[in-house]
């Protein structure tokens, strides 16, 4: 990947992280940890990979993204706002009673959201249905789903995985955000789904394992997904929960709590410093 492109993606991701912080801080609630871990892949998807038009968010030939880990809505909203689907300023209305930015993604209220999610395990099935719909219609669009690693504990994920593998849904790419933490603790402390890639391979998926914060690796993973013509692809992405905010990184407590004013200011100062460095 060219340096200028990479830098632009990093800038977008950093701004998305600021959007995440703005949202959860003003809402005094939300899920910052697992939102921050997917900002890089969202930056790549919305800027490089996906064919979407903010002026026509329901275009029938658009690529679809299903945020199966719906609690990372603040990251999705930030990416959509930065792409121009709605004003960035609105991110501060997250979870407010008079806002359209619901705590979990809602396809009827939020421009650019392709599926209402929030109940874990359900988004991947809907993404499978969309990918099948594209195949039945001989349409060329692709479907992306982002899942949490804890979400893999839901049995429905494997019902969907079995079906997608059997139907050779090569237009479907599932991204597994493997930040290794869930509400009650580490994967190992709760109910580890490892080895993840082997499981998807056993369900007849193509798999790629990458560092989810390395844009070169992200690009090659999605290129590998495109190149695979007879299987869906699972990109198992090693990430850092809370990425970009020092005190949130790899800290299980930041799964579902909002920063106070002091913490918010520190986070924004760190992200502003990162942004200044990137833009220098």
């Amino acid at each position, binding site marked *: 990947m060219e340096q200028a492109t990479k830098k632009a993606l990093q800038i977008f991701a950093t701004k998305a992280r600021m959007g995440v912080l703005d949202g959860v801080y003003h809402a005094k609630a939300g899920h910052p940890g697992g939102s921050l871990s997917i900002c890089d892949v969202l930056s790549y998807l919305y800027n490089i990979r996906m064919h979407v038009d903010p002026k026509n968010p329901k275009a029938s030939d658009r690529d679809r993204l299903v945020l199966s880990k719906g609690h990372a809505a603040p990251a999705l909203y930030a990416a959509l706002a930065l792409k121009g689907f709605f004003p960035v300023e609105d991110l501060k209305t997250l979870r407010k009673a008079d806002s359209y930015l619901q705590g979990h993604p809602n396809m009827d209220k939020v421009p650019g959201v*392709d599926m209402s999610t929030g109940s874990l395990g*359900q988004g991947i099935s809907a993404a499978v249905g969309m990918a099948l*719909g594209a195949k039945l219609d001989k349409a060329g669009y692709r479907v992306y789903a982002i899942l949490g690693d804890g979400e893999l504990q839901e049995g429905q994920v494997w019902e969907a995985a*079995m*079906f997608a593998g059997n139907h050779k849904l090569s237009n479907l790419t599932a991204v597994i955000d493997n930040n290794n933490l869930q509400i009650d603790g580490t994967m190992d402390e709760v109910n580890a789904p490892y080895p993840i890639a082997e499981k998807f391979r056993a369900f007849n998926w193509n798999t790629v394992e990458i560092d989810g914060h390395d844009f070169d690796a992200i690009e090659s993973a999605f290129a590998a997904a495109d190149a695979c013509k007879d299987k869906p692809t699972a990109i198992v992405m090693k990430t850092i929960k809370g990425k970009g905010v020092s005190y949130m990184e790899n800290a299980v407590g930041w799964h579902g709590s909002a920063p106070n004013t002091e913490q918010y200011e520190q986070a924004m100062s760190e992200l502003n410093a990162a942004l200044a460095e990137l833009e220098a």
Partner: protein
Amino acid sequence: MAEAIKCATREAYGKALVELGEQNDKILVLDADLAAATKTGMFKKAFPERFIDVGIAESNLMGVAAGLAATGHIVFASSFAMFAAGRAFEQVRNSIGYTHLNVKIGATHAGISVGEDGASHQCCEDIALMRSIPGMVVLNPADDIEARACVFAAAEHDGPVYMRFGRLAVPRVFDENYKFEIGKGAVLREGTDVTIVATGLMVNEALMAAETLQNEGVSARVVNMATIKPIDRDILIDSAKKTGALVTAEEHSVLGGLGGAVTEVICETVPVPVLRVGVEDVFGKSGPAVELLHIYGLDAAHIAEKAKQAVALKG
């Protein structure tokens, strides 16, 4: 009114899907390894390229149906009521109800009349579950004619629909000129002393009960309520005003189904006695379907008995 013809509503469902498939190429049919029993196998035979079997995975069935609907298809998703409404309740609620996607759930083998398979498969809770979901239309046809009409109405309706079909062959109540409209009940027989509001296979029983009651000097109005949600408030209020007492009759738990829906309306508008005929708060058991219907009080005799009790309660 009742003719000798008997047909299971699931059979009518399968046939109607084939008819629909011929008219509209956006129709897709999904099943979860029960195509022979739900009768979606008829559609599979006619349109194999538009039939998808997801296997024994009802949660994924509902999610895939939602995803297909989100890409512009009209999706009929089928399984037994126990698994469609029961096992996959939350998928129906969140992926289909909350999204208001164009998924039509064809749930067969509802109620006690599943028969020999017993309680694990006799779903008497599905109406209660499905009607609690905002925006969900809930249909429970009385015979094959009405079942076919429900399928066509569901396809026309923009949004999710739950259709409830039975395994047992039941007597035909309506004729070929029957017109069905979502949300409209219909007076099948006029009466002045009490109204029997019936749904599904209990409609025929209600008509027989009315006949018995007439011989005993009680004039019973019979209302067919094929749409449980949205419930036809007008016909209920009118019935309460004109007859002063109601009896509900359904092959479903007395908790939360038609009985629940009717009492909710009547208590808030024209409070008159409402008695409920249905499966009491118990699980079913194995046995021949018709025998079970009598054992659980789902017959004309029980309806007539309740109707007389309702009349006695009138002030």
